[in-house]
């Protein structure tokens, strides 16, 4: 039905003459043969990984990852720097920021339950009133705890979230040619 034969001749001409980048790599599926060899290959590959394990996961929470510098984690507001322009509230896509009045100035508070860490508010703030951290793995006991008051939001996030038991060291992720991810201890 949609074969090219019943096409309009002028379109055919256009198809032949027109400019279109065509860079096609023809992929051939291998012929179904040598199944004994391929079975042995598969088993040998499995056995190689068994003898030389290449572990990629990290033993959380006994080991913890320190994320790269620009990681978008939780943040706090410097209420003194804030000029009360309310742009962060306007731009927040998740409606996580609520403004409260303080010294006749509208200062943001955040609902961590809604925040999606897009950092639009951080980036739109004309005075850099937000100070960012790499903290991201926190848990709250109640829904209401995620609604920060202004007092809380001006503090470092790990000062008011329930403390988490970190047993072991911090590690940094390094991309490795042979192992994919390698974890380097910090400090």
């Amino acid at each position, binding site marked *: 039905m*949609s074969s*090219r034969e*019943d*096409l*309009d001749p*002028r*379109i055919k001409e*256009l*198809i032949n*003459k*027109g*400019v*279109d980048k*065509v860079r096609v790599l023809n992929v051939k599926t291998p012929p179904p043969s040598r199944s004994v060899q391929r079975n042995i290959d598969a088993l040998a590959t499995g056995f190689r990984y068994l003898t030389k394990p290449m572990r990629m996961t990290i033993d959380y929470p006994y080991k913890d990852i320190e994320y790269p510098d620009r990681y978008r984690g939780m943040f706090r507001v410097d209420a003194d720097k804030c000029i009360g322009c309310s742009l962060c509230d306007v731009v927040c896509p998740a409606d996580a920021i609520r403004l409260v009045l303080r010294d006749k100035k509208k200062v943001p508070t955040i609902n961590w339950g809604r925040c999606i860490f897009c950092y639009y508010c951080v980036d739109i703030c004309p005075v850099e009133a937000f100070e960012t951290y790499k903290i991201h793995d926190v848990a709250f006991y109640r829904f209401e705890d995620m609604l920060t008051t202004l007092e809380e939001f001006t503090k470092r996030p790990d000062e008011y979230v329930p403390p988490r038991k970190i047993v072991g060291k911090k590690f940094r992720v390094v991309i490795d040619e042979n192992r994919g991810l390698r974890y380097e201890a910090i400090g």
Partner: protein
Amino acid sequence: MSQPGIKDPDLNSLLSILNDELKELVSKIYADKTEKVIYIEVAKERIMDLAKKLFYLGFDHVKSVSAVDYPREKRLELMVHVGSYLRVVRKYTIVIKSSLDRDNPRVPTLTSVWPSAEFHERETWEMFGVYFENHPDLRRLLLPEEFEGKWPMRKDFRIVTRKAGEAEAPWK
């Protein structure tokens, strides 16, 4: 025949072919300024003929069937994106636009020409209430069975956000 100010020669020749073929059928053919999209405006009675012609011209699949609601003008605008897998022609997308009566939007189904429109038409039916005549299987697609509102994508559909502690479904 072709639209002035277009630099792409392929688009020029495609436009002239389209103009030749569809002159009697449609009210307007124009390309937008990115020179990748061709808009065709057509009366809804002619839409089947247009579809057959376009199929003959190599536009072999539908990328999207949807609608735009204009409640002030009391119309729904059917918006069909048609594309092609054929070389050269595939560089351009055709957007078919057709005004429908907002109170009783009925239009013949495009699945008889483009089977790829089947699920898109089901979505447009449940979201906008556009009834596609002779569609093989016009049922709800995305909305839950117990959904009671009508045509949620229309502009006059009221979005009710759920209040805290409210157990019932927000649309009830």
